[in-house]
């Protein structure tokens, strides 16, 4: 369903992606792991069509993102749910209005129908009772859950999830990842998840790809990745200081 072929991207001369290729079949979640700042979020933005590759192709259901224009790309994006690292909630809107935003903007549902849908989703993510609060008045975990609710409210076919558990306490992180798993079971979306919570994420996903210096160095099932003898993968998973990946 999602396919990247030889995707290259540079920003002002800094080569970030150097030929990224992988595929995510329908209904599967792929975990994208790798060192911070090596382009994982950039890959998500490429898939969402927010960033165009310098070279290479990104296709969703056989449709090449780079060739889509105006209404076509808007129609494709309406099938996406994107969970941003920081939530990206609209600070001027309440929790309710944030979740209702995509429905108000892109559907012809009545106010009552919108209210019903939003309240159901808020219930699902455990945020009932906070709908009149603003993002500044809720905790980090609640912001993430609101963002998940907003991403889910239109039943997306494709979910792009950027570091859902970053900055959260272990319980909150577990809750968020568990929520993603249960939603995946319910609606069976196709997704890419970027996360450093390897143990928990590996329980959710079907396959894992590791990005290193702008290329995918390995793809496999969570079990295969855990058993990988690739020194880069091993060091990343175990978090050893000594190894081929070194910081100076």
């Amino acid at each position, binding site marked *: 369903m999602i396919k990247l072929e030889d995707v290259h991207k540079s*920003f*002002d*001369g*800094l*080569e*970030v992606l150097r030929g990224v290729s992988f595929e995510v079949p329908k209904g599967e979640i792929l975990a994208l792991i790798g*060192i*911070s*700042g090596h*382009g994982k*979020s*950039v890959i998500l*933005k490429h898939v*969402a069509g*927010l*960033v*165009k590759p310098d070279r290479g192709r990104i296709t969703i259901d056989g449709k090449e993102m780079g060739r889509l224009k105006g209404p076509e790309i*808007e*129609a494709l*994006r*309406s099938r*996406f749910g*994107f969970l*941003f*690292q*920081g939530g*990206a*909630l*609209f*600070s001027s809107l309440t929790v309710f209005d944030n979740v209702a*935003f*995509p429905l108000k*903007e*892109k559907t012809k549902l009545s106010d009552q129908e919108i209210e019903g849908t939003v309240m159901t989703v808020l219930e699902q993510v455990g945020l009932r009772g906070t709908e009149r609060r603003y993002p500044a008045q809720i905790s980090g975990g609640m912001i993430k859950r609101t963002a998940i609710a*907003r991403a889910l409210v239109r039943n997306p076919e494709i979910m792009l999830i950027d570091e859902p558990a970053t900055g959260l306490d272990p319980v909150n992180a577990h809750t968020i990842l568990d929520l993603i798993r249960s939603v995946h079971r319910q609606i069976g979306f196709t997704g890419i998840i970027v996360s450093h919570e390897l143990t928990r994420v590996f329980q959710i996903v079907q396959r894992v790809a590791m990005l290193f*210096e702008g290329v995918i160095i390995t793809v496999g099932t969570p079990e295969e990745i855990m058993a990988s003898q690739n*020194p880069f993968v091993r060091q990343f998973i175990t978090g050893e200081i000594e190894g*081929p*990946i*070194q*910081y*100076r």
Partner: protein
Amino acid sequence: MLKRTIKTHPGKRSSETKNPLSFSAFSVKIDFAFPLERETGRKMMNQREACDRPARGADVSGRKDLDAPMRWIARLGALTLFFLRETGRMGLFLGRAFFYAATPPFRLGQVLKQIQFIGFQSGLVIFLTGAFTGMVLGLQGFNTLNRFGSTALLGPMVSLSLIRELGPVLSALMVTGRAGSAMTAEIGIMKITEQIDAIVLMGVNPFRYLIVPRLLAGIIALPLLTAIFDVVGIYGGYLIGGKLLGVTKGTYFGEMSNYMGMVDVLAGIYKSLTFGVLIAWVCSYKGLRAGFGAEGVSKATTQAVVLSSVLILFWDYIMTSLLF
């Protein structure tokens, strides 16, 4: 600056350690990439801390091969290219804004919200500025005209000064300071916190949602604020000239109608209309192109206020020379 490189095993593909951002004045390329895309790149550079950031557009300090005069010429060239690039981008931005403003769907709710913010919430500032400006004009005008025994002309002097020049210009400057800066900061923060990306991904056109309502609100609110400024200023002038210094009400307002025509009023309205466009245009543009982090937003806000203010004064001169 802290540098970090990633070492790999001998024989493996090594990461690039040269500064990929160093460039000469002659290699500045015109880039019309969507600002969000450039921002993603900047953010990544921050994360990787792999290289020093260049002074935008005009950094030729790396050109050691050039002697001093040539470096100055190179810098001038780079600045010229930067100016042309920014002008082009701003022109395209305004063109897009007008195109979306003229084509449906129209977001009346958003426009009203912005009118409330730009217009209604600026009311008190405009009232106070107008009142004091009128009072100063009344005082200074009376003292000057008194020397020539022409205090009867105080009304026309105050009203013409306000309606033709001071009303539109000072209103625009005050709105720039109060609402324009907030506009840039709000859009800038929305950009760096990925709220604009979120809007795009929900299939909503950010131009229609963020820029067009502000542009239309500027066009509607500025003439109204200017009218308030003018009226309050004229009464402020009367308060000093009439109530305090003895010019009669009939003389003050009667002479005004003798010396002022509709052309003066219309000129003031035209000016304020264009200032409304200018403020919304510059402040929204700067917000959308704000750099990463708090520093980027504060820099964009300062640039927006300075550029808007200078352009208001410049455009006022152009309009005055064309209209009168």
